């Protein structure tokens, strides 16, 4: 009887010892850190790229006429700009291509001040929703055929805003002529852009 009991005790001890070892092996293989124990845990960090995502126009049509009674002589659409990204962005005009070749004796003004034979065109941020500006104050004037990098709008994350084309022209500039002004909008991250 004693021998039987001793044998059973031995079997129990061996089985307990084995289960402890197998548990330790299992804990090690899955890299879990047992409570009260110690171990190494690998932490892997991935840098997510910053994605710039925007909706903006590639072409801005407008009309200008001396017959308008306001200081601003331009009929402009609402130029919507939307930042679809989670970072603030700035909208600049990098360059403006101006072609006045179809207008005789007409030149461009970079400053907004025009003589009888000049045209000046600029951009202005929307002040009242869906209302064209009547005045020319706070206008960012476009420079003709030269690199400008002029900021025209700042947009927070997921924010939308709008611009209008504004401008003026001298009394001798014909209302019947056509001319082309093509600004190139460039969007950039606020912290890294110029």
């Amino acid at each position, binding site marked *: 009887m004693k021998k039987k009991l001793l044998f059973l005790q031995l079997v129990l001890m061996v089985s307990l010892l084995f289960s402890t070892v197998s548990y330790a092996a299992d804990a090690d293989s899955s890299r879990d850190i047992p409570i009260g124990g110690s171990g190494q845990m690998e932490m892997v960090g991935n840098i997510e*790229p*910053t*994605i*710039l*995502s*925007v*909706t*903006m*126009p*590639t*072409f*801005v*049509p*407008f*009309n200008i006429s001396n*017959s*308008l009674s306001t200081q601003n002589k331009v*009929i*402009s*659409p*609402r*130029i*919507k700009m939307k930042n*679809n*990204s989670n*970072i603030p962005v700035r909208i600049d005009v*990098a360059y403006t291509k101006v072609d006045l070749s179809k207008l005789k004796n007409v030149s461009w003004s970079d400053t907004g001040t025009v003589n009888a034979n000049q045209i000046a065109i600029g951009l202005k941020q929307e002040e009242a929703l869906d209302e*064209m500006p009547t005045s020319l104050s706070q206008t960012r004037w476009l420079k003709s055929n030269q690199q400008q990098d002029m900021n025209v709008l700042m947009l927070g994350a997921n924010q939308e805003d709008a611009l209008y084309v504004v401008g003026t022209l001298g009394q001798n500039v014909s209302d019947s002529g056509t001319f082309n002004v*093509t600004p*190139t*909008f*460039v*969007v*950039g*991250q606020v912290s*890294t*852009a*110029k």
Partner: protein
Amino acid sequence: MSKGKKQLLATAGIFLLLALTVLICYLIFTKKDNPNLLYDDNATVGVLPGIDMDERRKELQDALDRSMIAFSINTSPVFLNGTSKGNLLIENPGNNAKLLKVNIMIDDTEEEVYASNYLKPGTYIDSVALDKVLEKGTYNATAYFSAYDEADGTYIGQTGAKITITVQN
């Protein structure tokens, strides 16, 4: 005031109003053009077409809305070396309804280092090698997105995005 006087006053008031209405109508409807002036038979009553500012503005707005594009790009793509692929992550979203082409120019040198072919709406470029081999360094660049009509490929317009290219080795 007695009831009779009130009725009399009310009746007088109504007659007075009627008389005034008749007089005003007479003045409005019997107004004749000055017979000494010769009016042009070719003139049409109304506002000259095209001069209505709201109508003109609506036409301009339609043209501008047609030119709107959405796009996405990685602001800081990284290339392991000058010939390896980098994560440009350029997207032409499905709601654009325009073809896009992308050209990347280095700001300082105005050198074109990448030009894509047309991207259909609802497609993107994950990683790609640049067309020019760049030395190790960081480059400020501008990615120009040119939009084209999806049906006939007509050029619509262009816009851009500032990015910083890093070449690690």
